[in-house]
């Protein structure tokens, strides 16, 4: 950050003040690549706040991303961070987690990455209740490649591969996660910064497959292209059209183009994780001959 002039810079220096998000970032990589009014950076603030509030040892938190604009989050976080291939953040994270269960592993990626090419890993990790926290920044489009239709794009808006408007039915992501067995499912928008930060905190503290959908504007390729204005206009739409319905039936939270947005914490339940099941199963099969795996591994 050196070299970038700041308002009140001397005050900052005198008191050693710093933007509270900064220590969570690789500061030598700022400014980032995201467009003006892109919501991804805002979700990062929420994540940083959740990390602060969790009191976790950040050396034991890893972040894994796929490819996409959101996929770049891993590269900016000052954590052990992995920027993998398109769609495959979840299986990479699965390997990381299983090979070192002492880590808290967060997957942070885009809607296309996690649910188009990565959809299979998503449903299977949820089914297995793999102990991962998934943050899906849903901007309803493929940002990085220039605004193609995504499995989340509502019916209506124009995308480059739906040049006359999308006619394909999208996923309802919270429902999908729920149907596959996620233990925690929430949706917030980038307007709901505090709730989003809180959901992320919940997610960090929860064991098992956690799914958090963060609706976020892509002014460059989604809203401007569809004459919906800039990022801030999308945030205003989120503010106006969202209704908080904690515990809502996930079946009912599908999203229509510029329609009502149901947000909230939809699912919060308990289920043994894959690794817990393995340990308790082998414990009962082998008795004392079996040393529970990964229980002390994190400290190694």
């Amino acid at each position, binding site marked *: 950050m050196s070299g970038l002039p700041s308002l009140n810079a001397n005050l900052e220096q005198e008191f050693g003040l710093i933007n509270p998000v900064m220590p969570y970032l*690789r500061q030598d*990589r700022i400014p980032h690549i995201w467009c003006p009014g892109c919501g991804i950076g805002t979700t990062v603030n929420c994540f940083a706040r959740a990390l602060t509030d969790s009191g976790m040892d*950040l*050396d*034991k938190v*890893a972040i*894994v991303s796929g*490819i996409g604009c959101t996929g770049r989050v*891993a*590269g900016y976080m*000052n*954590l*052990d*961070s*992995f*920027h*993998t*291939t398109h769609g*495959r953040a979840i*299986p*990479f*994270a*699965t*390997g*990381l*987690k*299983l*090979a*070192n269960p*002492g*880590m808290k592993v967060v997957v942070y990626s885009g809607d296309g990455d996690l649910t188009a090419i990565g959809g*299979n*890993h998503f449903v*299977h990790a949820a089914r297995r209740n793999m102990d991962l926290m998934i943050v899906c920044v849903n901007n309803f489009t493929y940002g990085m490649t220039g605004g193609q239709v995504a499995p989340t794009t509502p019916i209506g808006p124009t995308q480059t591969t739906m040049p006359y408007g999308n006619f394909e039915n999208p996923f309802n992501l919270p429902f999908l996660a729920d149907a596959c067995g996620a233990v925690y499912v929430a949706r917030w928008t980038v307007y709901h910064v505090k709730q989003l930060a809180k959901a992320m905190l919940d997610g960090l503290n929860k064991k098992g497959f956690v799914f958090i959908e963060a609706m976020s504007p892509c002014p460059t390729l989604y809203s401007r292209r569809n004459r919906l204005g800039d990022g801030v206009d999308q945030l205003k739409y989120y503010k106006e059209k969202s209704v908080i319905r904690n515990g809502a039936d996930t079946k009912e939270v599908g999203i229509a183009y510029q329609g009502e947005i149901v947000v909230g914490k939809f699912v919060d339940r308990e289920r043994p994780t*894959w690794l817990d099941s*393995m340990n308790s199963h*082998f414990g009962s*099969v*082998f008795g004392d*001959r*079996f*040393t529970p*795996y*990964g229980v002390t591994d*994190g400290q*190694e």
Partner: protein
Amino acid sequence: MHADPKGVLTGIHFIDGDHAACEGALAAGCRFVAGYPITPSTEVVERFASRIPLVGGVFIQMEDEIASSIAILGGAWAGKKVMTVTSGPGLSLMMEHIGLAVITETPCVIVDVQRGGPSTGLPTLPAQADLMQVKWGSHGDYEIIALSPNSPQECFDLMIKAFNLAETYRVPVFFMMDEVVGHMTERVEIPAPEDIDVVDRKWTTKKPGEYNVYQAGADLVPEMVKAGDGYRIHVTGLTHDERGYPAMNPVAQDKLVRRLINKIRDHREDIVDVREDGVEGADVVVVSFGITSRVAQAAVEQARVRGVKVGHLRLVICWPFPATRIAQLAETAKAFVVPELNMGQMVLEVERAVCGRAAVLPIGHAGGTVHEPATILNKIMEAAQ
């Protein structure tokens, strides 16, 4: 370093190549395997699944080969020695992650028990037609290492070597078996742990702050850390600089790709491993690998009985290819005979190495079984003319 006794089943066994390969991996210290079933390789992971609970480690059957091939990369960055196991169709699905393993320099072993192809082909019958694929199957430029055992005993022994090479060079190492070797049962002797040399990961001794995840010394291989050690590393499949940060320009590309390639090319002569039988001064040199080497050896011995001065050069390491050695032999040999269970793959390398100085006689085979020894014998006799 010696093998961790927990994984070593010291003693004499009558097991097949797939099982022996699993034991080799366990002895080498492999503690995380992600896989997806496919004939004729499945027994490797089946055995691993049954052995690992009491050794200490994890096996997970993933939803597909794509997931398996990247789960192991996650496992490696978490600090474990890792492996996945497959056959042709699964290997084709892993190609994107071969590239990721290469560019992120993640040590891992990929077992390919080869069967008849292309496509679903002959699932239960042998071939050696993935030789070029393991070298060239992913997009972009890179180098890898590939070994090829010809017996259950070698499935054990060479597997340890495979892991050691993966750790030494931080590169994906292919373990190219075939259906015959995988399903062939023979006596396998597993030594005591203290008689097994295993190479530990090239852990850094630097402290966080001093350490750059992709800074390499003279050997071109960077030191490694694992997630959770406090180094706050960044690892990406994009072209990156020494800090691991994306660097999207031709200069960074040149620096990175050249190092990735040269860390293998520069060590080629250390890595290549050929087994020679009477090649020095031979008129005819048979070049082979894997199961075919056992058939070829039979033919070579028959040819010698018939008075031919024939040698046998067997590739234990197929990639990097021992071009230098073959070029040397081409100075004196009249001809090279190259039997392989494919329609002509290794022979292309032999031809280039020989460079017109001797005749090169391929013996292609579409797979499904091994060569008739007589076919190879006839070609040797023809070459000897």
